[in-house]
């Protein structure tokens, strides 16, 4: 088996055994930190250990029993859902406009929509903080949603644009020639066919907002502090095992979102 050629260049599996070992180690390096926290979060003792000598749900109880953590979780979900809604709508119509018009203007617009991805986050954070101080938006849900929407827009535009690239716009013209208005033609003919791309854009928007730390550190505070902001302060100042429980729950959420995104992609390929 090991002596068999592995590729068309006739290298054998044995000759590149080192490659398999190295790649195995790198993949382990990537995955272990994502998983190791989960068993540790069920530790029954006063500090984290692996493997845990006794099991309990104490850190999950500490998380659910704390009004502070609960409030922050609620804020994060609310901001992420509102951001998803706003970014998906704005990003989808923008991607549609960019795809339909030829020329310099849409190219420039596309550039503008990619900007939030290129500008270092710390700069977005202090810029928002500065302007929000004058608009009274610091520490508000609205301020967070607007900032996160801007950060999420590139991902929605990229996802929807790639969906539109493989869609034949003539179908919409047919609908219009049969008497549908333009918005109606878009909603009933185009949107159903690019819905997987729109949904995967929405998924990206949700994750972008829910996991965002740097901007939230600056512009969210008090009762509108996000979960990530609270976690950051907690990790920096003390190592509270409650964070292990929250991390495990967040990893569970990531796995769900990952499965969702893969299903969307597979659905898109099949079509």
């Amino acid at each position, binding site marked *: 088996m090991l002596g068999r050629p592995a590729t068309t260049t006739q290298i054998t599996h044995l*000759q590149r055994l080192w490659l398999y070992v190295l790649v195995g180690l790198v993949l382990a390096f990537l995955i272990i930190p994502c998983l190791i926290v989960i068993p540790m979060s069920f530790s029954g003792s006063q500090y984290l250990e692996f493997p845990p000598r006794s099991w309990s749900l104490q850190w999950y109880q500490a998380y659910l029993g704390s009004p502070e953590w609960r409030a922050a979780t609620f804020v994060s979900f609310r901001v992420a859902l509102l951001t998803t809604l706003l970014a998906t709508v704005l990003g989808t119509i923008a991607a549609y406009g960019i795809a339909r018009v030829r020329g310099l203007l849409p190219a420039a617009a596309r550039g503008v929509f990619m900007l939030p991805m290129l500008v270092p986050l710390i700069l977005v954070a202090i810029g928002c903080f*500065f302007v929000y101080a004058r608009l009274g938006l610091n520490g508000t849900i609205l301020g967070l949603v607007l900032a996160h929407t801007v950060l999420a827009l590139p991902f929605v535009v990229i996802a929807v644009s790639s969906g539109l690239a493989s869609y034949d716009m003539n179908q919409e013209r047919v609908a219009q020639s049969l008497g549908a208005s333009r918005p109606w033609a878009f909603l009933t003919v185009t949107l159903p066919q690019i819905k997987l791309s729109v949904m995967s854009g929405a998924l990206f928007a949700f994750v972008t907002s829910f996991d965002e730390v740097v901007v939230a550190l600056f512009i969210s505070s008090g009762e509108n502090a996000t979960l990530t902001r609270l976690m950051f302060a907690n990790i920096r100042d003390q190592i509270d095992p409650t964070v292990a429980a929250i991390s495990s729950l967040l990893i569970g959420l990531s796995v769900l979102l990952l499965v969702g995104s893969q299903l969307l992609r597979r659905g898109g390929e099949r079509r």
Partner: protein
Amino acid sequence: MTMAIDLKGGAAPATLNERLLKRHDRRERTALSLLTAPGALLILVVLILPIGWLFWLSFFDASGEPTLANYARMLRPVYVKTFISTFQVAGLVTAACVLLGYPVAYLLSQLSERTAGILMIFVILPFWTSVLVRTYAWLVILQRTGLINTWLTGAGIIEEPMPLVHNLLGTVIGMVHVMLPFLILPLYASMRAIDPVLMRAAANCGATPAQAFRQVFLPLSLPGLAAGIGLVFVLCLGFFVTPALLGGGRVAMWAMQIADNIAVYGNWGAASALGVVLLAVTALILVVLRRIFKVDTFGGAR
């Protein structure tokens, strides 16, 4: 009504239609272009205007007098040290990502789509997991009372816990973990696009596997690699979360200096100037990469 008048004027129906169609076309273009307006306006208000404002601020001192002191200050040793340290960390992390990521992308690109898809989960799951969660995990693994130190002291291999975190080593380990998927994903995509027939042709022409790799595969994978390197390096320059938590104050990074200038000193001029230079360096690296390798550095990014 216009139609009647035009017909009386003797215009042929074709030119009539042409004019109407042109006007319709123009109106449609405007309407479609306007669809980008709400999003673009939001980006203007929340991103472009604030950064423009910061740029303006960077030319004034605390009392509102115009000055270049904010830029001159960057030549002071403490700032120069931060820049050097930032570039050092970014360079180390990028190099480690290339050394660890290239073999992974290469092997996955040689496997069947199905097997590669399954192994890709190891790369994509970290990608979808919050940076904060992963940084916390590294803290749990590396700290004085963390997993590695507890195991090694427990096994009697070391007497004293090793300082694995709250220093440069911990920062680099944590950052490599965050950045590796950003290198592997675009690199993998570009390697998949390399025609396997080329490698077979090289073998037929008598190349050893190593020669075929070095002379055919490696050069063809360079644009993808350059895109990944540029992306990772630029992200490292502005990275805040992981260095702030794993550096323990011993690793000075550009982004942290900006944050400190505002949170600790309330010095907007200094923070703005630092931010403007960071943005300029970021833009410069991306533009140069795009020119040299004709790659869309951020095209494949999440």
